[in-house]
């Protein structure tokens, strides 16, 4: 018997159509992955199975789960099924737990809701379940005392406490570091095997899908475009969207070769420690070193990558290079001039550096027009262009990043995420800096848009030699867009060298673990 059988599921929220005739089936104990870009309707499909659709949602069709049609089941009966027949894990472990309750109590609640049992027994089972998911913390902990990976383990324990037949995981590892992701995925696989549970994994990441899933369902704009067993589907992609998605995920840009040049940015022995904080009243003061004796350089026209997990010191380093934060030891110089003179950032140096941030939605003042947004760096110039010269500079900058000069009079909310990152690049380029820092600049973008933005960067490098520091947690992105790569861990640079060399023959154990943990797409027969 099928565990899950969705037939012609359609959905609109108020008047907006979200899903069209979605059909898919799952066998017990099977791992099925739904993949697609944002707006494909994959999360809504998951919520529909849970019976947790938002207000104003009008579903149609049939969702048979373990012999029950979810869409025809009244709410009280659905409550009895949730947590019991199907459980769900969400994307953001930092906010998914009630901050005021211990994790043990929150796991025990799943049991107490559905079983007639004593509180003590429920707590004992909860503790056992927390151990099963590999949490090395006592159940008396509160969520804020745990890391993201640990919290996600708690969420999983909560979802499977009653051994449901179907576990839905909506982007369960997207908010986590790559090594943590690998461990959580391994845990999910183990649980599915041990509990003979079906897992419906929702993810945008094709590499994760290829690593974990038995079957793949590819969705685009609310429709299922292709489905099949993982290996078979990856070898015989039929639908053009699947192929495009796959091509974008493995996209390699064509970067012009870098010619040897004198050093541009030099970072020497930089240390930045944050003020000590005491954990207990009389305990020792812990001095937290965000940057610990960091040294490296970037040559003129050289493209350097910086990889590391959250908390490794990447953002502190960015801020230090940009002169936004003073360092306690060491020196950062650009073309021989210090970024900081005394305690004041050096304007002449700042003029030579610009930055592109990660989040296309928070990078711009929503109240200014594009023309004003991208000319903000003119503030650094002694004689900023004005009048016709300014208009020309704006038009050129927009054209350079593939936008139209007419876009100058629009507000930022009129643009998509990918277009916004183009505007951010235009803003960075308008003063023709020597060095650009891309701070996770493509991490928030869908794969197809990401590929386009990476191509744009390569294009710009062809037009004029451009040096940049490309910061990313994603090794596959860094691979083709940089000449050289630095690997950072706990405030230290543990390995650096030519990108291809480091990624194929890592020497430091940390780099090795990063590369081992990264999910990989198999070579395909996409033809």
């Amino acid at each position: 018997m099928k565990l899950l059988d969705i037939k012609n599921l359609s959905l609109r929220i108020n008047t907006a159509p979200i899903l069209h005739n979605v059909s898919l089936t799952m066998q017990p104990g099977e791992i099925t992955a739904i993949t697609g870009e944002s707006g494909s309707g994959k999360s809504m499909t998951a919520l529909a199975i849970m019976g947790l659709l938002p207000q104003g949602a009008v579903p149609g069709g049939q969702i048979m789960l373990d012999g029950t049609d979810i869409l025809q089941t009244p709410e009280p009966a659905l409550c009895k099924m949730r947590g019991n027949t199907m459980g769900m894990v969400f994307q953001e472990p930092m906010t998914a737990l009630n901050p005021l309750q211990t994790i043990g109590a929150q796991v025990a609640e799943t049991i107490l809701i559905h079983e007639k049992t004593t509180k003590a027994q429920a707590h004992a089972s909860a503790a056992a379940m927390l151990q099963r998911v590999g949490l090395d913390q006592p159940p008396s902990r509160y969520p804020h005392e745990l890391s993201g990976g640990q919290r996600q383990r708690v969420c999983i324990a909560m979802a499977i406490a009653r051994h449901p037949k179907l576990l839905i995981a909506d982007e369960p590892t997207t908010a986590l570091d790559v090594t943590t992701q690998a461990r959580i995925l391994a845990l999910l696989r183990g649980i599915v095997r041990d509990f003979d549970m079906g897992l419906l994994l929702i993810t945008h990441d094709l590499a994760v899908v290829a690593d974990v899933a038995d079957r793949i369902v590819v969705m685009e704009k609310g429709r299922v475009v292709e489905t099949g067993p993982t290996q078979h589907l990856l070898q015989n992609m039929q639908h053009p969207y699947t192929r495009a998605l796959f091509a974008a995920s493995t996209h390699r840009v064509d970067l012009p070769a870098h010619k040897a040049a004198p050093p541009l940015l030099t970072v020497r022995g930089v240390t930045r420690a944050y003020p000590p904080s005491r954990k207990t009243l009389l305990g020792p003061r812990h001095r937290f070193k965000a940057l610990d004796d960091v040294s490296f350089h970037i040559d003129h026209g050289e493209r350097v990558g910086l990889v590391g997990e959250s908390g490794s010191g990447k953002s502190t380093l960015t801020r230090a290079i940009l002169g936004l934060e003073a360092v306690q030891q060491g020196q950062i110089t650009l073309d021989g001039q210090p970024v900081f003179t005394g305690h004041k950032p050096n304007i002449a140096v700042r003029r030579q550096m610009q930055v592109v941030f990660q989040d296309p939605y928070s990078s711009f003042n929503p109240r200014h027009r594009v023309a004003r947004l991208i000319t903000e760096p003119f503030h650094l110039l002694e004689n900023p262009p004005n009048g016709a010269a300014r208009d020309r500079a704006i038009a050129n900058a927009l054209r350079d990043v593939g936008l139209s000069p007419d876009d100058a009079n629009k507000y930022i909310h009129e643009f998509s995420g990918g277009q916004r990152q183009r505007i951010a690049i235009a803003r960075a380029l308008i003063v023709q800096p020597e060095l650009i820092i891309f701070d996770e600049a493509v991490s928030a973008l869908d794969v197809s848009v990401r590929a386009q933005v990476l191509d744009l960067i390569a294009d710009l490098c062809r037009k004029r030699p451009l040096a940049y520091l490309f910061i990313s947690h994603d090794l596959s992105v860094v691979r083709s867009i940089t000449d050289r790569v630095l690997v950072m861990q706990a405030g230290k640079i543990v390995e650096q060298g030519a990108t291809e060399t480091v990624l194929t023959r890592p020497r430091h154990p940390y780099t090795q673990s990063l590369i081992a943990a990264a999910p990989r797409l198999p070579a395909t027969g996409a033809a």
Partner: protein
Amino acid sequence: MIRYTLGRLTSLTVSLIVASLVIFAVIEVIPGDPAAFMLGVNARPDTIAALRAEMGLDQPLFQRYFAWVAGMLQGDFGTSWTYKTPVADLISARIWVSLPLAAYALILSTAIAFPAGIYAASRRGGAGDITIMGATQLGVAIPNFWFAMILVLIFAVNLRWFSAGGFPGWGNPALALKSLTLPAIALALPQAAILARVMRSSLLDMLGEDFIRTARAKGLTRRQALWRHAVRNALIPVLTILGLQFSFLLAGGIIIEQVFFLPGLGRLIFQSISARDLIVVESVVMLLVFLVIVVNFAVDLAYAAVDPRLRRR
């Protein structure tokens, strides 16, 4: 927890010291010669001199300040110039009207606002929600002293359920409570309206949080998720308002006492202002500010009791 409490205690002490300095400066420094000010333009020089001596005005400022603070710490608030009795006695006779009134009103306000706010949030957009929100919109706009007058008109003058004013003393607690009931209602309802609105919007915020979705995915009903997960989280911002409300109830009580002719601190302070008895004004104001600061300290401790994230710091 100890560290947090110590931190709050320090800030309580600093607040009290600065507040006392401000009050001392306004009352004893700004008027120039407080004795001459209190006695008015027609006072005889020897009377002024007598008062100056009694108030210790011939001493340097900082000495007077320390004497005042030291006195208060020992329960000595000086002697009233108009009543010729120790201010401490004047206050202790009246504070047992003002404090119970504020507490009574706070209890009423909470008892009305919490259920109303929770009900409205759980029925968002429904008829109950719209009715409650409409009522709170009126409640927020109503001046409490005018509301008090209307209560007197209806329940004392027309229905004769309550007396229109006065206070029989705590000899008969039931009667005393009864005479404080109309004033407490007048004070409580407008505050309850504000509190209910804060409770509702805070709850609605919480209901949109991820952990509520997690709770629903565990199999909790909407109602269970609301009561077990949203309410306690929603209390955190509500506590802030509750702390502020106490100071409004205390201050508002001063006004309401006027409507109901209650012999509380309000009456004392207004009589002292018109009699220019700065000694009484200074002490009563310090007492009011002391109460507000202490209540805010208690609110800070309540935060920590509700929120484990604060206990660690």
